């Protein structure tokens, strides 16, 4: 059986980019269909137990891993909300130095002033505000004490949360629905404005005729065919799956850059045994940052979780692991994130992504320095013992690639924006080079590592795209000039 839908715009994916684009387009008067491969999740089903939640909320149970040295875990969200459902909720605008680089290197006309209305709009929609010291919890207190004693630049993070009580499990489904992920903000707005959201829809084909988009063919969870007739397609399947989808459809390959230029913000975390009670899972897990070394490409950011999370991440074995876990209430944890110069590649093998990524010498040096700084931070905070994410006996300055135990949370760049068709996959308006009516709105268009968490950048770019398709300038939230007019969708 085949179902048919018709729309002005078909959005593929309901994560940070797709949900935002869909809501803005629908509220602007466009007929929108959203096709999401994963399920819809409800806070009623969350259990605050990491292994269960990894299996249910993450793509492939969070077991996505890069091939290369070292292998890097790359957990991705699955379903309505995408990775915003399971991220820490940290909100940074795109740093000005990064925008300057985009202008110079990729010919993108995106400065602070251009993007400001889009950021303001997103920040209001997601209730972005700074974490209070009380809510940040004991884990942040440890890092703040260390940073203050060392005189390092630091601060509390801005997050998309409303009514947060510090449940400590942002990455495993917020039990209070305080985290304002796009699944409970933009997606309901899109539906209220008339958008049709189809979950369990696996997009097989982007239909093109005469170089123009005509629609999408998908397979539903029930195994039925679904066709969506639409002259405009917004691909927002995420940095790992967008190049796979485009490649399968023979799109975006003109420059040879599709699937290349993958940056990840690889990260690691260390622990400290304190004299005081920390109770790391009481409070916001990622509430505090140290940006003293941001210009070197090193950010220190909070991370924490319940005992099962700590047991997984603690870089110890056997009796030492058991002893440290017995003292869990006194454990503090903090992360090192690197703005990477390494670049990887996503290829499709039988329709699934194969991710190749090797850490380059500069990033090895950043991790050596970053892990060393982490030790300094914990020592300055008064740690009784520090557990660095390195094999026993290996000093940070002597660590080799294979010694690092890395995760990455911010894949970017595999369909990078570049004004020149020979160098990028999409142009500055996120339109696919060489095809009419196909746009990309997810992390894949971000042409370089940001050095900060990317969800706001992705959402601001998606907002800008939606308004571009509506034929309007982005209107800042609360502006008296009102929103886009109805019926101007491309």
């Amino acid at each position, binding site marked *: 059986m085949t179902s048919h839908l018709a729309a002005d715009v078909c959005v593929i994916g309901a994560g940070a980019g797709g949900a935002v684009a869909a809501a803005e387009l629908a509220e602007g008067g466009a007929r929108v269909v959203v096709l999401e491969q994963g399920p819809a999740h*409800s*806070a*009623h089903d*969350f*259990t*605050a*137990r*990491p*292994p*269960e939640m*990894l*299996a*249910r909320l993450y793509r*492939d*149970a969070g*077991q*996505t*891993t890069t091939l290369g040295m070292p292998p890097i875990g790359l957990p991705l969200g699955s379903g309505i909300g995408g990775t915003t459902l399971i991220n820490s909720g940290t909100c940074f605008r795109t740093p000005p130095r990064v925008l300057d680089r985009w202008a110079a290197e990729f010919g993108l006309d995106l400065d602070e002033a251009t993007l400001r209305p889009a950021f303001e709009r997103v920040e209001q929609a997601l209730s972005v505000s700074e974490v209070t010291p009380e809510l940040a919890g004991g884990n942040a207190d440890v890092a703040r004490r260390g940073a203050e004693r060392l005189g390092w630049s630091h601060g509390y993070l801005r997050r998309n949360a409303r*009514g947060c*009580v510090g*449940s*400590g*499990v942002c990455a495993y489904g*917020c*039990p*209070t*629905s*305080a985290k304002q992920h796009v699944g*409970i903000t933009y997606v*309901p707005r899109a539906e209220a404005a008339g958008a049709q959201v189809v979950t369990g829809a696996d997009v097989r084909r982007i239909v093109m005729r005469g170089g123009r988009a005509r629609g999408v063919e998908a397979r539903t969870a029930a195994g039925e065919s679904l066709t969506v007739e639409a002259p405009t397609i917004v691909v927002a399947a995420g940095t790992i799956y967008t190049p796979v989808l485009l490649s399968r459809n023979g799109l975006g390959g003109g420059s040879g850059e599709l699937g290349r230029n993958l940056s990840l913000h690889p990260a690691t975390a260390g622990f400290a045994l304190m004299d005081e009670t920390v*109770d790391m*899972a009481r409070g916001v897990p990622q509430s505090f940052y140290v940006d003293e070394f941001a210009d070197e490409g090193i950010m220190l950011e909070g991370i924490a979780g*319940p*005992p*099962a*999370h*700590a*047991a*997984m*991440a*603690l870089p110890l*074995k*056997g009796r030492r*692991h058991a002893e440290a*876990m017995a003292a*869990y*209430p006194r454990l503090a944890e903090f992360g090192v994130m690197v703005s990477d110069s390494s670049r990887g590649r996503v290829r499709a093998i039988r329709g*699934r992504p194969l991710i190749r990524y090797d850490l380059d010498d500069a990033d090895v040096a950043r991790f050596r320095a970053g892990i060393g700084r982490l030790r300094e931070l914990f020592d300055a905070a008064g740690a009784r013992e520090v557990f660095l994410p390195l094999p026993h006996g290996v000093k940070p300055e002597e660590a080799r690639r294979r010694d690092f135990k890395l995760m990455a949370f911010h894949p970017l760049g595999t369909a990078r924006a570049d004004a020149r068709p020979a160098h990028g996959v999409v142009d500055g308006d996120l339109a696919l080079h060489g095809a009419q009516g196909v746009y990309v709105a997810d992390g894949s268009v971000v042409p370089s590592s940001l050095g900060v968490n990317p969800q706001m950048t992705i959402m601001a770019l998606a907002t800008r795209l939606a308004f571009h398709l509506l034929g309007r300038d982005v209107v800042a939230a609360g502006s008296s000039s009102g929103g886009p007019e109805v019926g101007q969708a491309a």
Partner: protein
Amino acid sequence: MTSLNEFAAAGPWPQRAVLGALVSLARRRRGRALLRYLPQVDQLMQALLATEHFDDPAVSRRLGWDPAAVIARGRDLRRLEGRL
């Protein structure tokens, strides 16, 4: 099914099969002895089994973390504030 088995079963092929086999091995004394010859795999399996152990509410409660209480508070707050 334990939460660790659910985690392993939800992974992609071929990881699902490999991880499932390794978890079975790591649960047995002789299997654990064999895994010591593969230090990185041994570290991963120890971490996974430790995760399962500390995910047990009876164990985590002793360390001050009660997932049922966290979920109950979340449910009450959602109801009180009319959240999704």
